């Protein structure tokens, strides 16, 4: 698509939050504080921040698991403040949580995967095909009859993702989905998320690990419920001072780049992935 056509048909904001405020405590301490953020349709946005920065509170707003107390929120082009839209938004927005074991309602994969579509009134005859498609999307075809509690951590989380995909949502929200997994499991889940994004899903990934977000189109950094910065991963991750203020650790290649720079070795640009670092060092 040419730039002129793109300018004429800008990609719409599938999620738009304006001055979102949320407080759990009676004392009025804000978990979200005048937060404004938008996500384009088909975009991969990583939301980063340390523990207690408001990431999960924001994620729960996007699935209307928390009511909007103050501000405006549109999810999947629907007003999240309208109670009539709650279930339509949940149908359009699939959310995967941190611990896969706490998301299963059945021992058997296909039964668990049927749970969401049944709740949203999908005809029974259509459900097996949806289950097969969802399993194929997470590269786990043939696992229909397996027991959920006998899978590896990465497989469990991919089944949890498949459980969300059977509802065929437009937006996928991943709330620290890799934090309980071993490196192999993390890679499995990361690759799955990347594949889903390539297929056109809007992906919102919540994490406190910057390494998980380098493949995102954009990243937003939260701190104390406020939006500290938003930009491309390269813009944000190569700014150690910004990351320090957010309580985040820069990716290893960025740390190495600055260490080398401190020792007088200058690389032509600051790498954010190990692949880029390897390429620079081999040059």
């Amino acid at each position: 698509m040419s730039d002129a056509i793109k300018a004429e048909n800008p990609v719409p904001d599938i999620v738009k939050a304006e001055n979102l405020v949320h407080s759990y405590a009676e004392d009025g301490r804000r978990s979200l504080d005048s937060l404004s953020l938008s996500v384009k349709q088909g975009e991969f946005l990583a939301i980063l921040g340390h523990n207690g920065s408001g990431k999960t509170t924001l994620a729960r707003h996007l699935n209307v698991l928390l009511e909007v107390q103050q501000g405006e929120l549109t999810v999947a082009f629907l007003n999240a403040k309208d109670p009539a839209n709650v279930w339509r938004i949940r149908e359009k927005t699939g959310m995967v949580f941190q611990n896969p074991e706490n998301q299963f309602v059945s021992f058997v994969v296909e039964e668990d995967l049927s749970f969401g579509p049944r709740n949203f009134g999908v005809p029974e005859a259509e459900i097996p095909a949806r289950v097969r498609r969802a399993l194929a999307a997470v590269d786990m075809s043939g696992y229909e009859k397996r027991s959920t509690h006998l899978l590896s951590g990465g497989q469990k989380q991919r089944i949890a993702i498949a459980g969300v995909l059977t509802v065929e949502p437009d937006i996928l929200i991943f709330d620290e989905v890799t934090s309980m997994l071993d490196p192999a499991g993390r890679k499995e889940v990361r690759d799955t998320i990347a594949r889903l994004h390539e297929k056109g899903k809007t992906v919102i990934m919540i994490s406190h690990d910057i390494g998980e977000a380098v493949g995102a189109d954009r990243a937003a950094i939260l701190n104390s419920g406020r939006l500290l910065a938003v930009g491309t991963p390269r813009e944000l991750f190569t700014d150690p001072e910004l990351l320090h203020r957010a309580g985040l650790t820069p990716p290893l290649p960025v740390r190495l780049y600055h260490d080398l720079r401190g020792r007088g070795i200058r690389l032509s640009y600051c790498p954010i992935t190990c692949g880029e670092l390897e390429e620079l060092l081999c040059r």
Partner: protein
Amino acid sequence: MKQLPVGLYQPGSSVIHRLDGSAKLLCLFILLAGVVHTASLPGYGIWAAFTVCLIRLAHIPPGTAFGSAARLKWFFGVILLMNLCFYGPEHPWMRWWIFCPSYEGLIQGIHVVARVFLLLVLSNVLMVSTAPLAMTDAMERLLSPLRLIGVPTDLAAMILSVAVQFIPTFFEETDNIRKAQTARGARFDSPKLWEKAKAVLPLLVPVFLAAFQRADELSLAMEARGYRTDRRVWKKKYPPYQAADWLALLLCAALAAAFIII
């Protein structure tokens, strides 16, 4: 902990697996009624042969089918011994202190053990050949008439299903916490009851906290996946019984009736 019978469902395509869950549950109740009314040793032989046939038809490994009953061998031993020693004081073989072992006691003990054993194995065949959600569907279907008087049977079935789903996780977590506390010096193996109690009490706090946290996370995940208790979007239509379901019910009813009448 994964050896618990609750997690023993083994997917399969046998004739027993393919039967409707509620038909299987009804069959189990009918068979149990028949077993309870059995009063002769040859009768138990017939039931045992029937149970073995079911196990073969369901392609269930003998270890799985008899596993939960075999684990209770000490319980069966105690039951047999108590009946033997205390049941029939009229014609005892001998009398010593409060013990009066008799032939009647021995027969009664065999009756009780055989009944409980058959009950466990038949229930196990049902558990192993029926998926947990199919089981809750079956309970919901059988309880559905109670909806007429306002009992939320679907909600009760879901609570039961989720509770069953969490049992292996719950035991695994308890085991992990127990190991962590053992590493920090807790004495679960102490023969002293007081020390054992002291070790178990601190175990309960993290186990229950973890259980509440899990319940909280699960409820959020279920809500995010469209589950709602205020309105049932998914109108469940129970499939009609197939010929095999009716045949199974008829066969079980005939067998049980024969024992009850005779």
